[in-house]
């Protein structure tokens, strides 16, 4: 898995466009157990990223990731802004400190996931985006270098998202619903799944 500048640019574009396309679905999920703004918030953030695509893809990878993170922090407008923002800021920060792709992909992704956990003071099993990101990290560690890595990540993300439905939320707005949050997919886990699937699809197309 190599990451050329053109690959990175199209990867960001595909990921942002996929999130924007999924905004109505994210809103529907968030109306069920949150405040209904996850779709419009993520759409606004991803549109801002697309608006800066030239500037972002002109940067070295670490700075580009930090620019994506900062853009999301400044434009999303909900808790998902700092959460996704911290993910990309931490990934960029890891690459600025002696981590390199593709060899250190799991380490870099791990730093990013840790930043989400710290920002949200949340852990796996609480019906959040971490319930997709942490299983993906585990697959990244377990299957690093394997030829079927991308396929395994796709399956992991889809299965992990489905497992958020029976969970009871204990973090975020959904926790106000208590047991009534059970039976609904988590909107943040869904947007994380959309992002992971979009990145995988983009990389498959470039292999």
């Amino acid at each position, binding site marked *: 898995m190599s990451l050329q500048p053109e690959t990175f640019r199209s990867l960001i574009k595909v990921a942002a466009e996929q999130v924007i396309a999924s905004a109505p679905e994210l809103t529907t999920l968030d109306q069920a157990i949150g405040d209904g703004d996850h779709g419009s*918030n993520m759409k*606004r953030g991803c549109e801002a990223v697309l608006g800066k695509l030239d500037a972002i893809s002109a940067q070295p990878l670490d700075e580009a990731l930090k620019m994506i993170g900062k853009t999301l*922090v400044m434009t999303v*407008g909900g*808790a998902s802004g*700092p959460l996704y923002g*911290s993910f990309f800021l931490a990934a960029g920060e890891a690459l600025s400190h002696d981590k390199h792709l593709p060899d250190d992909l799991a380490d870099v992704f791990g730093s990013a996931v840790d930043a989400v956990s710290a920002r949200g003071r949340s852990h796996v099993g609480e019906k959040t985006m971490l319930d997709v990101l942490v299983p993906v990290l585990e697959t990244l560690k377990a299957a690093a270098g394997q030829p079927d890595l991308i396929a395994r990540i796709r399956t992991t993300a889809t299965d992990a998202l489905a497992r958020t439905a029976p969970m009871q939320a204990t973090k*975020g707005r959904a926790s106000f619903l208590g047991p009534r949050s059970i039976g609904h997919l988590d909107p943040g886990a869904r947007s994380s799944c959309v992002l992971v699937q979009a990145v995988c699809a983009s990389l498959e197309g470039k292999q």
Partner: protein
Amino acid sequence: MTETVSIVIVSHSQDIAKGTADMVRQMVGSEVKVAFCGGNPDGGLGTSVPLIMDAINDAWSAKGVAILVDLGGAETNSEMAVEMLEPARRDLVVVCNAPIVEGAVMAATEAAGGSSLAQVKAVAEELSAD
């Protein structure tokens, strides 16, 4: 005039943020600087990191700034805004775990007496104690 700790109010709703600031000004007077913000970057319900940073800088006091928030995203975005301030200011801003209206009034009352940032935060947070 001696400088006091300032208060910043961050709500998902611009109306709630403004109304809370109005109550603080009426009950505590103008000796404590109060800034507020509400709404997402498009003006809908939500919170916005750049608006929170502006409010903190508008209300800036060398004695510190206490932020009162409503629901979860306001807290997360306020914590993010504090981290994005210039380094010299970050340690002088705290997010209080307190109800927004009562917390803002109690914090401003305590600040008006010349209390430290830690004291202001503690008084606001007594409202959340069991």
